[in-house]
């Protein structure tokens, strides 16, 4: 059995995934139903609060789950000695890291599938087929966000020494991503004359905001609805350029975090 398949099997049996998926599905269905009842139509239109709520919900909870799960997966195995058993048996840091990222990502994707599945059930019969790409855009962005969060989570697990440290650090990082970085961008934007490189650096500090802004662009939102970062980016780079920068930022987070975690898992004391 490959290590990745083993890790995926183990993690998808977790009661945290089952419970989290159920809660997330209920929330997604509730948000969708609220959108439908409020607007009497799709609720996924370009400026709909329901679309925004689904996007935020799809980023905040599954990304938090992927972050915490990824960090705990590494730290728990280190504390219990299983990581050392794997390494001694010849499993490389890269192989272990890829397996952990894959399992945390799949778990978060299953959670997202549960949420969007519940949402689709509520929408069934009320959504014109032409609007389905909007739903798909939100789903795609949240999948990418979950992958980035899983990579960062595994990196956190590789850096920290204990499971408790890993959980605290991943929650703190999630909070910074969810709230802190947007405030930093708001505070700094008037002070710096951010060119393309400056904006890219700001985006690089927050994968959640990058994914959210990408989602907003995919939803066709403009101006202030894109948020401070999105407004800055689209003004200077255009919509397509902004999307490219955001995708590059997410790719950098995924690749950079995975490579660093692999290096650490392969060299640090297990």
């Amino acid at each position, binding site marked *: 059995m490959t290590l990745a398949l083993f890790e995926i099997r183990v993690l998808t049996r977790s009661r945290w995934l089952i419970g989290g998926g159920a809660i997330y599905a209920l929330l997604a269905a509730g948000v969708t139903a609220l959108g439908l009842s409020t607007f009497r139509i799709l609720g996924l239109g370009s400026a709909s609060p329901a679309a925004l709520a689904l996007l935020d919900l799809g980023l905040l909870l599954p990304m938090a789950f992927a972050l915490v799960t990824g960090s705990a997966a590494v730290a*728990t195995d280190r504390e219990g000695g*299983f990581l*050392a058993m794997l390494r*001694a*048996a*010849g499993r490389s840091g890269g192989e272990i890291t890829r397996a952990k990222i894959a399992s945390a990502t799949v778990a978060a994707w299953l959670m997202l599938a549960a949420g969007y599945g519940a949402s689709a059930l509520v929408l069934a019969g009320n959504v014109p087929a032409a609007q389905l790409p909007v739903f798909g855009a939100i789903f795609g962005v949240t999948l990418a966000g979950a992958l980035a969060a899983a990579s960062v989570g595994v990196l956190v697990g590789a850096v920290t020494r204990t499971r408790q440290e890993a959980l605290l650090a991943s929650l703190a990082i999630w909070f910074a991503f969810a709230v802190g970085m947007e405030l930093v961008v708001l505070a700094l934007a008037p002070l710096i004359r951010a060119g393309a490189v400056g904006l890219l650096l700001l985006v690089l500090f927050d994968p959640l905001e990058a994914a959210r802004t990408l989602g907003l662009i995919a939803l066709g939102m403009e101006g202030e609805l894109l948020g401070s970062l999105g407004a800055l980016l689209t003004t200077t780079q255009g919509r397509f350029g902004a999307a490219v920068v955001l995708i590059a930022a997410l790719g950098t987070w995924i690749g950079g975090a995975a490579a660093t975690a692999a290096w650490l898992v392969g060299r640090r004391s*297990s």
Partner: protein
Amino acid sequence: MILRVAALRKTYGGRMVLDGLSFEIAAGTLTALVGPNGAGKSTLLRCLAGVTPHEGRVHRFDGVRAARGAIAYLPQSPRLPAEATVAEIAAVFAVDRADPAVSFAPDPARRAGTLSGGEGQRAALAALLAMRPRLLLLDEPTADLDSAARRDLLRALTAARDGGAAVVLTTPAPQAAELVAAADRVLAIEAGRIVADATPAAYLAR
């Protein structure tokens, strides 16, 4: 020869835990590392397993270094992934083997989270033995086992040794007699140094 250790040193926070150890481990032998708590036995085993950085050299021979599954390392009281079954854990380690099942293991269908400490220890040992490693490094493998399981373990280890594997295990000095008697060689460690390298008979006669 499987291992040659030369001037091995390890410090934790400025404290010398292993102080320039040098020795060799031959294939087809069972070596007992004995010593009191804090002597450095577990750290030494982790250095031999290659899972912690250290100073000095640990040379691995006879394909032990390159081959996947050539080294099996069992930490003290390992905690296996709770949601994985005993069979799945064995399959992860014995990935290239046709039949990873080992009679020493608990029920293969049971999840690790439902196992007692001793059962978890047996499951981990069975998974490692299923790899048929060239070098077995076991940190207090009998710590959580009852007397029947200890006998089963010793039988499994001597069988691995007779099959050409090198077995190195640690045990605290007060509990050493049973394991020492089964060993071919005893390395006694105190304060990070080897204080005796003897046959079991000579060590037990001290």
